[in-house]
């Protein structure tokens, strides 16, 4: 702790920290479209990318921005976009494409109050279920939620690492609270960062997954493999097929990429769970109100603890089941009408009573509101 205090901290906004993390992860292409409250991500990318030899483009709409980063990644450059609310809705079709065609890319979703245009400048966590089920058809999803500006930096790097490793789009589900917060963060020495790059093997079919591997190993366009990428059901060689057998196998393989590797993907934070009777479950922008609430409750002698999913999707159901055994009560706080709480109910099957605190008026959940339920 003492050593950490001495490190030089820079004041960054959450949205800016996402860009710094992305650049550290190797992002060299950003396609965006202005939308509150994510706009600073695009603005920072526009400033920073040419400085590191990358390119930024402002596209004509949200759909085009998503399409462009898939194209950029297919050409071998780590690519990212950012959006909020309505823009996330518009990007869903191409997100499904990226998941099905197994093109790595990262999307920063700075959640704002909805539905529709809603309260554009107010925080929300209303896109949690859309992140899981927003695009049509069954598809794998990875989504992470930062609780600090420093985590915006590190989790964006992790988004890129996961997207490269699993060859799929990965979401950073941040929100207006964290996105617009300025906080001092330590920018680590790039040499200390663990950066993953997609594995490449041109000798096997582009969508074949070698035994013991997680994802296909096709080369980026332009390196001599000359294969086909499509959103149609496709064979290992990338060409479309109407085979129902292949359709079933492909969809299953994509879902299994996640199901078989949940321990690798899932990350969470726990505080005071050793003796906690009441466990507060919060994530992203709600976390710090929860932490404060627990501190206040503990000061009054109540045994409260925190469980914070950092990985939202896949949902850490197994760990929730374990902690439910010891708890007398869960308090779940979200800036929505109840989204992740459904997963918690599904996982615990009424094994533990759940008090839900949801807010949909665009105001921030305050520590005392959570404390009252502990």
């Amino acid at each position: 702790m003492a050593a950490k205090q001495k490190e030089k901290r820079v004041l960054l906004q959450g949205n800016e920290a996402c860009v710094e993390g992305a650049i550290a992860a190797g992002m060299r292409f950003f396609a965006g479209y202005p939308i509150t409250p994510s706009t600073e991500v695009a603005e920072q990318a526009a400033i920073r990318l040419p400085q590191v030899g990358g390119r930024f483009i402002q596209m004509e709409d949200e759909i085009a921005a998503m399409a462009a980063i898939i194209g950029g990644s297919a050409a071998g450059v780590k690519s990212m976009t950012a959006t909020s609310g309505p823009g996330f809705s518009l990007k869903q079709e191409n997100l499904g494409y990226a998941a099905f065609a197994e093109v790595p890319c990262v999307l920063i979703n700075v959640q704002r109050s909805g539905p529709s245009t809603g309260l554009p400048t107010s925080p929300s966590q209303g896109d949690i279920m859309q992140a899981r089920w927003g695009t049509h058809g069954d598809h794998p999803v990875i989504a992470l939620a930062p609780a600090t500006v420093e985590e915006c930096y590190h989790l964006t790097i992790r988004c890129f690492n996961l997207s490269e490793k699993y060859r799929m789009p990965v979401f950073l589900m941040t929100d207006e609270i964290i996105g617009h917060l300025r906080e001092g963060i330590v920018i680590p020495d790039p040499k200390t960062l663990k950066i993953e790059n997609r594995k490449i093997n041109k000798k096997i079919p582009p969508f074949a997954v070698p035994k013991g591997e997680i994802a296909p190993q096709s080369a980026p366009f332009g390196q001599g493999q000359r294969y086909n990428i499509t959103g149609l059901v496709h064979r290992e060689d990338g060409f479309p097929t109407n085979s129902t057998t292949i359709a079933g196998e492909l969809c299953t393989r994509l879902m299994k990429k996640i199901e078989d590797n949940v321990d690798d993907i899932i990350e969470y934070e726990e505080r005071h769970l050793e003796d906690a009777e009441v466990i507060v479950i919060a994530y992203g922008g709600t976390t710090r109100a929860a932490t404060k609430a627990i501190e206040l409750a503990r000061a009054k002698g109540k045994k409260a603890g925190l469980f914070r999913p950092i990985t939202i999707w896949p949902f850490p159901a197994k760990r929730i089941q374990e902690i439910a055994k010891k708890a007398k009560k869960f308090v779940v706080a979200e800036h929505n009408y109840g989204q992740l709480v459904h997963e918690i109910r599904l996982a615990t099957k009424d094994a533990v009573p759940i008090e839900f605190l949801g807010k949909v008026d665009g105001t921030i959940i305050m520590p005392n509101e959570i404390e009252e339920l502990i």
Partner: protein
Amino acid sequence: MNRQEMRFTGSGGQGIILASVILAEAALIAGHTAVQSQTYGPEARGGVCKAEVIICEGDIGFTKVVKPTFLLALTQSSLDRYSKGVDKDCIIIADSSLVAPKGYNIVSKPIIQTAKEKIGKAFVSNIVALGAINAHLKLVPPDVLKEAVLKYVPKGTDEINTKALEAGAAL
């Protein structure tokens, strides 16, 4: 340092948000922990504008102001709105052109007048205010605040902003 929960209020265009960012930066340089946030929206376009800074030692925890220890108000409407309900020991620095509501710990300072008349540019009111706040609360060493100011103000305005900062400190 005790935890400082600070609100900066005024109207859009007064540089309230920039002042709050600069103070957060200065606190960081001085080795404290700091966060800054602000209200966005129609309010940020000419209406009442609000920014928050929390400064403390160690972990900041919850990032929004719950119980203000300090309030800066540069307009009457922001003073009226945000002074309501603050503790008696919350220090309020208000521009001296404003009518101070009774029963609060209000320090009136001619911030806008100083910017206009002494410096000759109304737009440096925010920097004058920063000088005044830091002189009153002694949050960071003056040279650290100057360093932070110069990091954020546009190139070519170093001199005028340094003057504004010093004039504010002398109020």
